[in-house]
């Protein structure tokens, strides 16, 4: 690569960094949303469409969400 090593290696390094960052962000964001949804469902929350088959009882008065 001779005199052009910096330019060629720099291009591949920056591309790897940006694509790697996109993949990492996608994985972490997905995990965070799955975790948040699981916590809500564990507290008895269901979407209205799901609630038709599994009705949700209201929380007792005064019980706060975690």
């Amino acid at each position: 690569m001779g005199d052009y090593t910096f330019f060629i290696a720099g291009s591949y390094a920056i591309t790897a960094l940006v694509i790697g960052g996109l993949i990492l962000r996608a994985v972490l964001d997905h995990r965070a949303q799955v975790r948040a949804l699981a916590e809500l469902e564990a507290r008895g929350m269901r979407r209205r469409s799901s609630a038709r088959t599994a009705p949700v009882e209201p929380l007792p008065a005064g019980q706060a969400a975690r």
Partner: protein
Amino acid sequence: MWQLANPTRFMGYTGRLLPWLVGAATVTVAIGLYKAWFVAPADYQQGETVRIMFLHVPAAWLALFFYSAMAASAIGSLVWRHPLADVSQKAAAPIGAAFALICLVTGSLWGKPMWGAYWVWDARLTSMLILFLLYCGIMALWRTIEEPARAARAVSILTLVGAINVPIVKFSVDWWNTLHQPASVFRFDGPTIHPSILYPLLVMALGVTLVGVALHIAGMRTEILRRRVRTLTILEAERLDPQAA
């Protein structure tokens, strides 16, 4: 196709498709990199710096592809008000921005040894920079408006106004005298690149496209989950404090 437009069905289908897509993307990029580094010869004029083209050109194509996909989704949001069109727009923006950034940085690193400058205010370079700034503006607008449907309408208008820049980027090298070379692959009279360099470029372009599509589908799935979380959080708040609802 219309069945896929239901978010629950979309989650089911894409959940099965995504692992295969990731596998295909990984294998194609690996083959593309091998061909780009060990099969394609050095260019007779540009020497080894032609290796930068295998990243720069696919990144430019995908930056334009994802903006076009966002514009198509924006029509879906404005005309049919379909939530999956909103989700598609929102998931495409960071991916398109990343490819626009890669295109600008690798172009700059290619420009210095070939043109003697990292940057010139050439029509192609400037219109690509505007595309990147449009992506940044769109991502900022998504974060500014909290209610997803309202945000989608505002973003759709901005996206469609900005879509005028897509043909400008593509044809800038034909409309103006630019330092950037004219199109050498998608031409009416056929590609002007020698097959020994063209085929590795096309393999890399396919691989990077598969990576982009996989990231877009993954982003759409995450956005659907985020909206479910938002809906359930609001429902929970209403249950806990019915008077506030």
